[in-house]
């Protein structure tokens, strides 16, 4: 089996030759470490007043250089190179619409405001600060991205990456447009909660716009030849779902269904990424038509055995490898033990992919490699782990 076949077989809930591995890497430090190159300590340059002034006067240049089809494509070209070097079967690439405002600030197409900070290792990190679409007035004047224009960018981005990486790794496409997460962060969670009570119609307007954007963009992914779509949309926290299942279904259910349908109509499988304790939402995610669910955070109390017990073979389970210790500073033996446990509990009969639950800059490239090696050691079918 090649990598793509292995991944698609698992996503279909069937048994490939070996449990596949998926990389969610999009943070600069582990990518640079995996590629064996220094992580550029450029943030301090941004602290020089002259550079700040210069940057403020040349934002058009930064917006050109950092455009998803230029800087973004170059970044994910390298992220996929790192995934490939580490031996992953599948790797994530994200198309993301944003605009640099000045040397301090970035805004995205969902109304999030970010601030440039040190990534903890001297590099630059865009840190989420707040949402700008705080009320219907702000939504009215908010400059909305045209879904067709956005989709053109998405098509170009993934066609390029697929042309380069297509045969070497299974590309997983994120189109930078989700529902619950984009909306709650684009207005702030408290505002979202207030509007859900005061004027759900306002929320429905935004949701409809986001669904159209996501559907067009996902259609473009299908046209680019990429076969797997990843929707990053946190619905839970460590104690369970943030919204009641009824509210989730009422506000977002139709949108999530249309997004899944768009992926399937374009010949793609679609994976739902959500952090937190999602056990109570698994059935719903399967009902919406998703092929897999990714993250399955052990620190939020999710075990693969319980997830499997609840959902059977209706969803491919992806993740459950811890990012607080295991993929940060654990020993080789600890990483092997954890991956072994994941495969034992999640992989029997197929429908499981090994991956981290999320990514951050303190994740170690060395530990990711161990995770891949452990999967190669324990993940051959038939699984034989006591």
């Amino acid at each position, binding site marked *: 089996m090649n990598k793509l076949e292995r991944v698609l077989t698992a996503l279909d809930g069937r048994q490939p030759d070996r449990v596949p591995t998926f990389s969610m890497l999009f943070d600069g430090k582990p990518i640079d470490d995996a590629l064996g190159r220094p992580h550029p300590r450029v943030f301090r340059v941004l602290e020089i007043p002259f550079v700040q002034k210069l940057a403020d006067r040349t934002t058009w240049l930064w917006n050109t250089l950092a455009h998803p089809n230029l800087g973004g494509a170059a970044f994910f070209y390298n992220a996929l190179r790192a995934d490939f070097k580490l031996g992953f079967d599948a790797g994530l690439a994200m198309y993301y619409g944003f605009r640099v405002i000045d040397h301090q600030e970035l805004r995205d197409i969902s109304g999030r405001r970010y601030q440039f900070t040190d990534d903890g290792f001297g590099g630059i990190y865009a840190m989420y600060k707040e949402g700008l679409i705080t009320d219907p007035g702000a939504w009215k004047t908010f400059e909305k991205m045209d879904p067709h224009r956005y989709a053109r960018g998405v098509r170009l981005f993934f066609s390029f990456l697929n042309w380069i990486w297509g045969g070497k790794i299974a590309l997983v496409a994120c189109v930078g447009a989700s529902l619950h997460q984009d909306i709650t962060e684009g207005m702030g969670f408290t505002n979202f*909660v207030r509007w859900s009570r005061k004027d759900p119609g306002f929320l429905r307007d935004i949701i409809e716009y986001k669904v159209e954007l996501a559907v067009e963009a996902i259609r473009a992914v299908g046209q680019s030849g990429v076969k797997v779509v990843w929707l990053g949309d946190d619905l839970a926290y460590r104690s369970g779902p943030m919204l009641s299942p009824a509210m989730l279904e009422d506000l977002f259910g139709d949108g999530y269904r249309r997004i899944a349908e768009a992926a399937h109509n374009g010949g793609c499988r679609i994976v739902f990424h959500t952090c937190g304790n999602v056990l109570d939402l698994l059935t719903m995610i399967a009902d919406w038509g998703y092929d897999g669910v990714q993250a399955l955070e052990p620190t939020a109390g999710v075990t693969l055995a319980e997830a499997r017990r609840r959902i059977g073979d209706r969803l491919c389970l992806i993740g459950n490898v811890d990012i607080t210790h295991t993929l940060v500073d654990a020993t080789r033996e600890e990483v092997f033990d954890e991956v072994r446990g994941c495969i034992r509990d999640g992989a029997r009969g197929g429908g499981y992919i090994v991956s981290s639950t999320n990514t951050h800059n303190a994740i170690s490239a060395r530990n990711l490699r161990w995770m891949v090696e452990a999967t190669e050691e324990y993940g051959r079918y038939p699984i034989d782990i006591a």
Partner: protein
Amino acid sequence: MGEHLETVKKAIVDLELEDIEKIVSSALDAGEEPQAVLDAMCAGMGSVGELFDQGEYFLVDLVLAGEVMKEGLKVLEPLLEAESMGQKGTVVLFTVKGDVHDIGKNLVGTMLSTSGFKVVDLGVDVPKEKVVDAVREHSAQAIGMSVLLTSMVDSISDVVSALSAAGLRDGVKIAIGGACTTQQLADKMGVDALGRDAVEAVRIFESLCGS
């Protein structure tokens, strides 16, 4: 509890964001004491907490209940004795340097302020210097730190050291909370308590501030 106070309590439990001001005003017009109205609201909040524990209410309902409390307090605040607002002590609350997760912190802040604490919310990604300044300026009795990222846990000890260096550590109690915190971490970082959720956070600060 009389009929008007029952209505106030029920409005909190039913998350009546639009009507709470009216309901609180009616209770006052009917002759209820401001403090009694506040107590009824707090009782409502207690029931919300129970419904949350029973799995009837979700995070979104808890946050909404906090917002309803805030709206009700807008009417009550000018009428309550200055001491009964913030009487339980002053808490400086923030999410640590390098971390922007604020949903939990905001919820803790709402619960504390609606339970009688004065809350100085410094926001997210807060440097230690700002904490020291705020503790000094507001003569705070306690600090609440929200931490969700394992990579940022050292920010906790940075704050503890900065407070010691400023000679303020002995006069202030410190509690932490958030997705990546454990009792082991609290012990290691030299803080006084760990809060697992917003309801527990209130109890902890009550005991830390000696109320």
